[in-house]
């Protein structure tokens, strides 16, 4: 009883039972306090709060609009870029196509040139060979003629006329060549 109650003695009142009826002074002061608080909140705090909320709403609205604008702009840019990209791609395709056809053309050109050249080389070679053959035949013919004349002269010991001799040999060779 002693120690515990010393603490309480300071705040101890006169009434020993729990008071169920409101104390008049406390009631009045409580009403005053509540009224003051309500007045302050209603007249000062809440208008300020609402003003701030309006500002915040405007700010958020502004940001949203801004964001929407930026988004539209970005969308536009993206569209442009895509278009450019598509153009560039088709252009590149064109270029490649062109290059391909050029290459084909050049290749054909080259092939035909080469063929022509080969043809002409073959032609020339044939002509050369032909000419050579003609020359050789001519040479052979004259040598054969000379040799035959010489040979025949030696065999028959008779001197034939150079002119007759030659025509004889020519006949022989002509016959020879017409045979092969």
């Amino acid at each position, binding site marked *: 009883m002693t120690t515990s109650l010393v603490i309480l003695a300071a705040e101890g009142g006169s009434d020993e039972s729990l008071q169920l009826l409101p104390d*008049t002074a406390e009631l009045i002061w409580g009403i005053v306090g*509540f009224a003051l608080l309500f007045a302050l909140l209603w007249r000062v705090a809440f208008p300020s709060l609402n003003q701030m909320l309006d500002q915040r709403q405007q700010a958020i609205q502004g940001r949203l609009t801004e964001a929407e604008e930026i988004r539209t702009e970005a969308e536009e840019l993206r569209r442009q870029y895509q278009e450019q990209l598509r153009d560039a791609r088709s252009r590149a395709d064109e270029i490649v196509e062109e290059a391909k056809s050029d290459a084909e053309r050049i290749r054909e050109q080259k092939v035909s040139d080469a063929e022509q050249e080969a043809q002409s080389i073959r032609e020339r070679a044939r002509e050369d060979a032909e000419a050579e053959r003609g020359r050789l035949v001519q040479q052979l013919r004259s040598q054969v003629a000379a040799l035959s004349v010489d040979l025949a002269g030696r065999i028959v010991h008779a001197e034939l006329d150079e002119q007759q001799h030659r025509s004889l040999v020519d006949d022989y060779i002509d016959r020879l060549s017409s045979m092969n």
Partner: protein
Amino acid sequence: MTALLAAVEYGGDFTLPPVGELFNFESALPLGINRTVVLTLLATLAAAALFLVAFSNAKVVPGKLQLVAESIVEFIREQIVLQIIGVDGLKFVPLLTTMFMFIWFNNLLEITPFVNFPTTSRMALPFFLALLSWAVFVGLGFRHHGLGYLKDVAFPPGVPWPIYVLLTPIELVSTFVLRPFTLAIRLFANMVAGHILLTIVFLATHAFLALKFPGIIVGVLTLIAGPLAVGFELFIASLQAYIFVILTAVYISGALHPEH
């Protein structure tokens, strides 16, 4: 009421003082100002200071204090007013916020160090607040529906008429008498009980912890119980403020749209 605990058997001298000594204070100053009045005004001042400081220079991007105050207001608006009354109840947000802050801060005095006395455990504040709540919802009922409000209360629709013999008195009494009565009693009794609980725990710790075995066991237990009780009372203090406001909102809603 003097509750004598079994401490004597263990050689202790633990006795609860008469309960009135826990709650009744002499007025030490003129105008009936006693400890309760001073504490009430201090709690009011603290609540007012919180809101004034938070909103006097309200910024779009809130600081910490503003965020706290904003979340309180938002809680009242979203969780209580919009959910229970609806959009037409938005004009009651300042009143309900004031009620909430006033009750909450006065309740929190219970666990404030060096104060430890909830001013709502005196009948004056619960009585006034319940009377205010009653006046608001009855006034609203009569203003919106005239004398039809009485009829709405006394004769709820959708009941066969013989039931009214039983129902009408019950409805009238429960609406106009029991509602404010229970509002006041609920807040008052919760805070009285909390204060007594904390007093018992603290006094028992004080008395028993000085003893030798086996009395000291009780002291240790109550020492552990102390912080737990404080935490529990923090919860109760907040819950009672919430319940008082939410019931007021329910009553206002009933007065505005009696068909529900």
